[in-house]
């Protein structure tokens, strides 16, 4: 393929290199906030928008795709293979568009502090972005793994940017460790996928014929590897540690974009590279996904740190994504192409949605953290008066993630539920009865997500300030507002225009050979994925009705109520003035969930005695999986290492003796 700058792949490649270059410029004067903040981050945002636009145009002109490129970089005789197809274009749109908002926000967010200097941070940040782009473009196992590891390492350094705090170093190490275990699983997965051809291009893997056993092994390895990165239970433990430790734009990028890159990897393996796997293997991700979704949202309800709460909510959303992915596999195996395509579209749509809404929420917490210095929900409250911009824009994200129409979260969950409702047609015994129950589970998770968002938004922004220092809180700066507004706009657009986006995602499904939706019928405002006669959803009409209803009510009240408005303090049942402490707390709001799901938590409660003069109540919530799985594992590793330490004598003669013995043994074996 010749290099001509007209082709979308070349343009995207150039923009990814521009990201790296932007980062490198930041290294020139690492201590200068002016260069990094005023120039480089906005430039990065422009690159992001450009990538999203080019990828979106490429994704709608499918005749040009897939487009390939071979770069003579890397080891001799191992060029980098790049490929742009509909799937990678979709995720490039996600990467570019979401990162544009985050970069804009980051331009105003990063300050000179104790941690990594801003220039270096800018380098790590843009390297992280570019490596994610290269993961999406990679078309052979080598370049995929190189990009994947660059992504893991650059994000590790971003997480530990406040490296003087021991807790953050610990969280970073946990992340690095688990990321490497995941990478190992992915590497092994590629090793299985090449199927004896010993060529590691993705084309060779597409052509390989695997037996059912090896296909299952490859699938499970991919599930372990990409599930680790995405935060699938029980491989999720790094996520609630690393997300709060990282600076907010980095949390937003990791949660909003990086988790989706892992989903991309799983989609790439499950629907593109891997053949010959019976469809019922899709039940594994469905089961794990549903469990993750419920687990994540239940733990989110019990959190008191706002970033940990959002991290657990990410686990929930990853669970939903894996559920849809598994469902698409089951339907594809059961020769139900239309519903399979519907499930896959739901996954892609939800990935896009989550990228926007979770980034928005994380950035919102970042603004709150900056202006108050607090992450603990117990010390916040009433911020809507002090930070109206952040509060209103965050509200969009909170409503979206709670799955309320007409915003975007509703669309993808609706699509997923539609797919679930066809699960009774699957031709496997028992599965056809059990799978529809998953729809109930998804609905439960959706309701709990609403509950969690009420808690998050209500405790942080509504009510009265719980601390006097909150009076000094200030609203976000101009670039930060722009970043938040960009993401909120994305949420609204994705919510209002599903009828144009779903067919575009449908093209991805059909290009992967999963299936195609029936030809589109109906007007632009009406989403009817399974044909005009079946179920449909018209978000603009819904939004119009809601807005008209609200306006009408306001108008009627204004017209009917003519007396002057009287403002008075609320009635306190005669118990004295209401203070910030007379409100529902985060712990109190989460208590019913904690009560229902008591066996899930490893709880330690300290209750005051009735005679205590200064009563204090506290509760610590631990993860049972951490104690049941990870602590014994760490114990075994420690004991194994101690056993090996017997050989470590610290005497050079002994070591030489080991070498001689090994040499003799090997020689004797070879001859």
């Amino acid at each position, binding site marked *: 393929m010749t290099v001509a700058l007209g082709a979308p792949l070349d343009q995207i490649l150039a923009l990814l290199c521009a990201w790296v270059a932007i980062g490198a410029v930041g290294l020139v004067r690492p201590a200068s906030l002016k260069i990094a903040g005023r120039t480089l981050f906005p430039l990065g945002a422009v690159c992001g928008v450009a990538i999203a636009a080019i990828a979106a145009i490429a994704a709608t002109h499918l005749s040009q795709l897939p487009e390939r490129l071979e770069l003579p970089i890397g080891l001799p005789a191992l060029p980098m293979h790049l490929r742009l197809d509909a799937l990678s274009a979709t995720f490039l749109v996600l990467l570019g568009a979401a990162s544009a908002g985050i970069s804009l926000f980051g331009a105003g967010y990063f300050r000179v502090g104790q941690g990594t200097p801003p220039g270096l941070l800018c380098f790590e940040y843009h390297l992280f972005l570019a490596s994610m782009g290269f993961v999406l473009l990679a078309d052979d196992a080598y370049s995929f793994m190189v990009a994947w590891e660059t992504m893991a390492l650059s994000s590790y350094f971003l997480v530990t940017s406040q490296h003087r705090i021991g807790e953050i170093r610990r969280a970073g190490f946990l992340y690095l460790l688990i990321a490497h275990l995941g990478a190992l699983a992915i590497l092994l997965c590629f090793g299985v996928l090449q199927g004896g051809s010993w060529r590691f291009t993705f084309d060779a893997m597409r052509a390989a014929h695997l037996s059912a056993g090896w296909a299952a092994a490859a699938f499970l390895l991919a599930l372990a590897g990409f599930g680790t990165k995405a935060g699938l239970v029980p491989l999720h433990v790094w996520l609630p540690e690393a997300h709060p430790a990282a600076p907010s734009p980095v949390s937003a990028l990791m949660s909003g974009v990086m988790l989706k890159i892992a989903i991309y990897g799983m989609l790439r393996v499950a629907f593109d590279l891997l053949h010959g796997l019976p469809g019922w293997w899709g039940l594994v991700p469905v089961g794990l996904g549903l469990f993750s979704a419920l687990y994540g949202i239940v733990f989110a309800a019990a959190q008191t740190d706002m970033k940990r709460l959002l991290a657990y909510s990410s686990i929930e959303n990853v669970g939903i994504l894996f559920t849809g992915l598994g469902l698409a596999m089951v339907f594809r195996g059961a020769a139900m192409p239309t519903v399979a395509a519907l499930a896959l579209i739901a996954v892609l749509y939800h990935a896009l949605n989550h990228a926007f809404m979770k980034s928005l929420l994380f950035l919102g917490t970042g603004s709150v953290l900056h202006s108050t210095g607090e992450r603990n929900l117990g010390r916040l409250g009433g911020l809507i008066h002090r930070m109206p911009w952040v509060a209103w824009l965050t509200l969009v994200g909170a409503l979206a993630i709670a799955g309320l129409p007409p915003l975007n979260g509703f669309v993808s969950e609706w699509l997923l539920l539609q797919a679930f409702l066809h699960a009774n047609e699957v031709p496997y015994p028992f599965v056809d009865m059990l799978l529809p129950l998953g729809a109930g589970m998804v609905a439960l998770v959706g309701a709990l997500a609403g509950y969690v968002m009420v808690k998050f938004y209500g405790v942080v922004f509504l009510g009265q300030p719980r601390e006097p220092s909150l009076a000094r809180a200030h609203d976000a700066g101009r670039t930060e507002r722009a970043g938040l507004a960009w993401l909120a706009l994305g949420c609204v657009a994705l919510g209002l225009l599903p009828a144009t986006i779903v067919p575009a995602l449908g093209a991805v499904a059909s290009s992967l050979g999963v299936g195609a939706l029936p030809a589109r019928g109906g007007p632009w405002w009406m989403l009817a994925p399974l044909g005009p006669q079946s179920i449909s959803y018209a978000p603009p009409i819904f939004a119009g009705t809601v807005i008209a209803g609200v306006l009408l009510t306001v108008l009627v009240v204004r017209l009917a109520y003519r007396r002057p408005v009287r403002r008075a303090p609320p009635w306190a049942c005669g118990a004295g003035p209401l203070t910030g402490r007379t409100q529902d707390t985060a712990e109190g709001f989460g208590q019913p969930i904690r009560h229902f799901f008591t066996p899930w938590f490893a709880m330690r409660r300290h209750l005051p005695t009735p005679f205590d003069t200064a009563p204090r109540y506290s509760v610590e919530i631990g993860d049972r999986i951490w104690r049941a799985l990870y602590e014994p594992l760490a114990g075994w590793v420690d004991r194994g290492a101690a056993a090996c*330490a017997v050989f470590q004598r610290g*005497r050079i*003669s002994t070591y*030489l003796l080991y070498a*001689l013995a090994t040499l003799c043994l090997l020689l*004797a074996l070879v001859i």
Partner: protein
Amino acid sequence: MGQTPFVMQLLDTLAALLLLLSFAMLAQRRVATLVELFALQGGVLCAATLLLAWRTGEENLLLSAALTFGVKVLALPWLLRRMIRRLGVYWDTDPLLNIPGTMLVGVLIVVFSFGLAQPISALASTATRSAIGIAVAVILLAFLTMITRRKAMSQVVGFLSMENGLFFGAMSATYGMPMVVELGVALDVLVAMLVLGVFFFQIREQFDSLDLDRLESHQGGR
């Protein structure tokens, strides 16, 4: 018995001499003598290479003989002698295993390496294939020398002697390694020597001794 040419007989004698010198190094406790033995071994190796070059007409071997002479007979022993004078290390006190015991283990190693070399010799097509066993024995004996010594200096001499064995093995199996490899190895050995020399001085500065026992108490926290 076929008529073995005189040159080949001479070569076999040199190979035997090489093995004998390895044993002598294994038994030697004076560091200064150890260096002289090493120089002698280099000389024998050089002579064997020259002989083989004359016999086979391979010009490469002439070059590598010159290299051996320059590096192993002149440069390295000179460096080592100078270092011994400067550091004042003349004796390697009490080796880890007593000398007769070491010699016995050495004999076992020679038996092992000859057994090992038999199938290789059958495969090799060179005139000197019988010497492969000796080369392996020289390598392993040098290894043993390193294990049983306490002084860093004697260990370095053992290491260099191991390189002699490798060189001899390559020569007898395939008439020498490619010139590039040989040059690289020679350079490596010289550089390693210089680096180790620096280390010796550092070790003595820190611990007032070149005795490696002193290092062992500093193995870091477990």
